[in-house]
């Protein structure tokens, strides 16, 4: 369908500082082919979302969020409250209304 994909994006643990200090966002993603005409697959994967976030939301110091084609060490990615490793990490296919959280781990005491 051409219905836009709605996902909830949340940042925490300090990761929100790279995104205008906004912790919760609701975003509507256009059809993937419209956004990335050269893309080889049809549906939004988390790796596409990371690029979209970098292009659209990331305000400063992208190296504090991304490293290579993934998130930097120390940021936990959660898909609907579960570690993205349980869902194939970068290759997870986004579903309508998913909540994707990026949580920077804390080390203070």
């Amino acid at each position, binding site marked *: 369908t051409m219905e836009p994909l709605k996902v909830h994006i949340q940042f*925490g*643990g300090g990761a929100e500082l790279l995104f205008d200090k906004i912790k919760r966002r609701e975003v509507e993603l256009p059809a993937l082919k419209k956004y990335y005409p050269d893309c080889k697959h049809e549906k939004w994967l988390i790796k596409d979302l990371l690029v979209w976030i970098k292009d659209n939301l990331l305000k400063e110091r992208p190296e*504090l969020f991304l*490293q290579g084609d993934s998130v930097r060490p120390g940021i936990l990615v959660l898909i609907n409250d579960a570690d993205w490793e*349980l869902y194939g990490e970068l290759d997870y296919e986004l579903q309508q209304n998913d909540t994707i959280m990026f949580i920077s781990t804390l*080390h*203070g*005491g």
Partner: protein
Amino acid sequence: VVKISEKLPKWAIERYSRQILLPEIGVKGQEKLMGAKVLVVGAGGLGCPAAVYLAGAGVGEIGIVDYDQVDLTNIHRQILHSEADQNVSKAQSAADSLRSINSKIKLTPYNIELNPSNALEISANYDVILDCTDNVPTRYMLNDVSVLNKMPLISGSALKMEGQLTIYGYRAKTNQNDKGYKYIGPCYRCVFPTPPPPEAVGSCSADGVAGPIPGVIGTLQALETIKLIVGQTHDNLLVGRLLLFDGEDMSFRNVKLRPRNPECEICSESPKITKLLNYEVVCRMQSKEKDLDLDIL
């Protein structure tokens, strides 16, 4: 209803009655608490509340490690230290406060820096480690200590208005109530195989922290330690789960972590890491984060 114990003296049944009344603890649980040995690493914002509730509950032996001295800027959150304790060793100050709360338990202050040459030996005297520290290299070291010594690690952290809590290195084998006999929870390296870049790491002295944030997390570390000691099974404990707390809007979230990594560098069956490392080199960070002179002064 509660049976009188042959092992617990009458004074203990009276003193700890409010928790012995709980079916989760009972006389058997109290016996376990009084026989338990817990090492609290860090006598700061997390370690103070954690240790105070462990001492209150009658945990038999508590070791407290901290190389630092009490500073006036600590007192808003490090509740075992008073104004008169300024420049005193935090480990000593904490142990003294705990002794006044409970003279029936053994308290051992370690006024030293835990490092790769002493950490395995010191912690081998204890059953559980609480990570109440404030820096990345020490967190990786404590994880490796926990795995090498086969002790669970109750790991709390706090910064600004947020806190995080989970248990690493849980082993069902050591808990006779736990049906999943072979279950082993993830370790810190299973979840975070690579340390973060140094420039991405915040600290309480540079970024600030509201006192009750480590207060809540440290208190919950004590609760998980008590539950672990009395034999709660891993589904009731924060094993394979991470608690996220955001004080800004009082939201709490329990998120599911990945399981133990069969290829983990330290906790897998054929580990690459078999002894402690130089964590400051591994993490490209210093562990002694000395309080910065603040710009605002």
